[in-house]
């Protein structure tokens, strides 16, 4: 099946950022009767985080963040990859499995509808709630005239 790089980037992003609990709950039924070959077991490591001077100048190193990665091969011979922020092996394994399945024609649409879209919606809702709470602290300052009137 031909999926564009943009499509794949999108689902990889959703799978990486989704809350683990929701990801596992939604995908357990789909993955349970599939076989995967573990190419690279879930493994915890670091990636270096970079920032830019003044936000947009030359890059500098800020520190590292923990990350978990995994590679699997599906029955349909597709390779699934995952890189997930934090130390979470079950999450990384599941994200890799789903990445592999989403590349298969038979699974692509159903998995997109059943897993990717709901997870994306869930994250949008959380983000919206956060934005609401933040918006309540928006402020208008008045400058007072100083000195004698």
């Amino acid at each position, binding site marked *: 099946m031909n999926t564009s*790089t943009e499509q*794949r*980037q999108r689902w*990889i*992003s959703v799978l*990486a*950022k989704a809350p683990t609990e929701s990801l596992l709950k939604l995908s357990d039924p789909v993955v349970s009767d599939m076989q995967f070959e573990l190419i690279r077991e879930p*493994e*915890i*490591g*670091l*990636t*270096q*985080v*970079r*920032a*830019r*001077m*003044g*936000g*947009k*100048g*030359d*890059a*500098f*190193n*800020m*520190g*590292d*963040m*923990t*990350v978990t*990665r995994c*590679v699997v091969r599906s029955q349909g011979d597709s390779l699934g*990859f995952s*890189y*997930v*922020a*934090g*130390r979470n092996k079950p999450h990384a394994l599941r994200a890799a499995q789903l990445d592999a399945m989403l590349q298969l024609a038979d699974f692509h649409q159903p998995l997109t509808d059943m897993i990717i879209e709901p997870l994306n919606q869930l994250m949008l809702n959380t*983000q919206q709630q*956060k*934005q*609401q*709470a*933040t*918006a*309540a*602290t*928006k*402020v*208008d*300052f008045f*400058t007072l005239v100083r000195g004698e009137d």
Partner: protein
Amino acid sequence: MYVAVKGGEKAISAAHELLAKVRRGDTREAELSVKQVEQQLPLAVARVMTEGAVYDPELAALAIKQSAGDLVEAIFLLRAYKTTLNRFGICEPINTEAMQIERRISATYKDLPGGQVLGPTFDYTHRLLDFSLMAEGEFSDPSDEAENLTAVPESVSKVLEILEREKLMASEMDHQHQPTDITRDPITYPADRSARLQSLVQGDEGFLLALGYSTQRGYGRNHPFAGEIRIGEVEVSIVPEELGFEIEIGAVQVTECEMVNGFTRHRDGEVKFTRGYGVGFGQCERKAMAMALVDRSLQAADYDEEVVSPAQQEEFVLSHCDNVEAAGFVSHLKLPHYVDFQSELELLRRIRAAEQSDSAKETN
């Protein structure tokens, strides 16, 4: 110089057991969970992540619990853990302009595109102890009344860009230079700014705060305004070799401070403001501000300013700002220096004995 000693194993293990007991406190009280530390002490977690140089709130919380709240010890624990992990790669630089804003203020413009958003702040609190926190009770979420609030825009443009557009501010440009990594290559002097900034991010908040303060009091004056402070989540992405394209792996919360500093004639002949930059993991506003002040004072050479104050002295600042190194060298004084001390003691006794015999001769 200290010497090796043997023995004491029993006493040492008893001391560690005692430490565990002290850390646990009164067992009639519920034990503090790592999740509670992570959720309820987020600013302590932020400091440990920033200075420990690893973004992982859970690990930072564990370090805080293990160190019984000694944050410098917790930072040490996190740094030590970091050395046990492989580095898989390097993230693309974070884009703070696309930050999901949780707080954004400016002390240079009252009205800003995108507005000023206070977020969760200690500012404007009265610093009175809140005894209601001593009573255990249900926490009520802030009311959801505010339905028709103007949402904070998805992406809020930077305050300093307003000045840059008018050509009144030194501009930052990406020259695609490969940044120095001080965790791999020790700093050499003069250091480039990428090494300085990495060192300042990991630097001790107290030390940098004091240095920043010293510049305000006249020791390396650089006339700062808090141009913009923002806190929020930014996406992190990497380009794994095996994929060959960029993928998002998650988000990190960061605090960023952009200082507008006193103007001077630049090398291009124009008079413009100068700038200092501070950034850190989590909510760490004081640290980011202090870092921005020191980043600017360390640019003294770029503007032909006379280097006369501690905050302007690169080698002094960078070689003393790391609290793991500093604590290590101060703590080593506790190691056995018996032989060293004996030789000093003997020398002093000999001097005293010689002086006594001299004065005895004189009186005779």
